[in-house]
């Protein structure tokens, strides 16, 4: 078979496989993708942050706060081996906080909890007229003993 025809067949075959796989798997089948990231402009978003509340004397609140109301000190996830995007997805995409899911969240921090109390918060951002509003909702308090979830989370 002439080399151009063979190349065309392989290229078209891959292209068809690409189309079928992304068409039947919501646009993603690594390394095939329709690259939908950032395709919806202006939508509200959710991320996650962690605060180190070790030794904090004031009582913890489960109420949502603005950036100025964050308790404790920042806890950097990356140097502690935790991917912030994984954490954000774990927090925002969990629909029911059963025992397994709570244990899964704690496992992400398994080697960071000795002598520490960490508060995981969900950050919600939305467009308000010509500015961006961000609020932080406490989700879980982690320490060497276990995990305490915000009582308002769905179980």
């Amino acid at each position, binding site marked *: 078979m002439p080399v151009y025809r063979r*190349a065309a067949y392989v290229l078209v075959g891959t292209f068809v496989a690409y189309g079928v796989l992304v068409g039947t798997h919501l646009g993603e089948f690594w*390394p095939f993708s*329709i690259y939908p990231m*950032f395709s919806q402009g*202006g939508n509200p978003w959710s*991320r996650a*942050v962690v605060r180190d509340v070790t030794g904090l004397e004031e009582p913890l609140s489960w109420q949502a706060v603005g950036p100025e109301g964050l308790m404790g000190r920042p806890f950097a996830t990356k140097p502690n081996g935790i991917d912030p*995007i*994984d954490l954000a997805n774990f927090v925002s995409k969990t629909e029911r906080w059963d025992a397994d899911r709570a244990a*899964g969240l704690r496992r992400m921090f398994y080697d960071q909890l000795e002598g520490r109390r960490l508060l995981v918060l969900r950050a919600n951002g939305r467009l308000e007229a010509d500015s961006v509003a961000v609020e932080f909702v406490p989700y879980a308090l982690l320490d060497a003993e276990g995990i305490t979830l915000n009582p308002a989370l769905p179980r």
Partner: protein
Amino acid sequence: MNFLDNLFGFGRDETPGERIFFKLFELFVVLGTVYLAWTWGRYTLRISDVVLPLGIAQYIDVSVFFGNVLPLVNAALITVLLAAGFFRVTRAAYLLAFLLLHVQYAARYSLGEIPHSANLLGMTLLGLALAALFFRRPVEVRRFTLGFTYFFTGLGYTLAGVSKLVGTGVSWADGRHLWMWIYEKGIDALSKTGAADLNVLQELALADHTVATAFLAFGMLTELGAWLMWWRRFRTPVILAVLGLHLGIFWVMNIMFYLAFYELVLLGLPWAAWIDRARAVPAAGRVLEPVERFTMRFA
């Protein structure tokens, strides 16, 4: 034929510089893939739960990779297969490495994140795999791999632009949307490092809606025009524009796909011609001679 000739150029004579460049490019893909296999494998040790199954994880239970050393065993297997592909031990090596890497990806990214940072490298590995299986002559293997990579790189960026048109429409380029993403990525930076400061470009975009809109419009147009890299004449300027897009994304949104960026630098600039020119200089020619012999030995 004109399109295929632009993409693959099977009929063109091959220079020593092209041969040397290709083997170095292949080495980059192999080392990048080894890095991914081990990075993903080590991170999977932290995972205990599937939140969002991706790819093959929708058909097989990837939780068998959790709580044991299987991800590291898989990384080791991928490494051996990549070495076998690079040294031309067996023609199926790259395809097997590609399939195992897909499983490694599915196990690693089961927590909800759908990253695209490794897609370009993954497509190139697939190109190497298919070239090894379907083409006999080394020059055809090289030309097919590069043409395949240019095709799917152009397609990928163009699809990203089309997704934006479908998802939002032309109003996607509204600068306020960039404000949202700057804040979103600022929170990611805060989570990642414990601090988040705005740089000059971010402050400029947040201060002026027109500037923010111009940034997004440039990005969208660059993506929508990326398919032009299928033609040799447009390849370098289009890939340079895509590199500019990535630098803009890095400076404004703190996102950098390092491996993809480096690969685009390799694909976009005329390295082969530069190597040919360097060969003409005696000192550089002496340095390149063993590389050229190696290239011929494992073509």
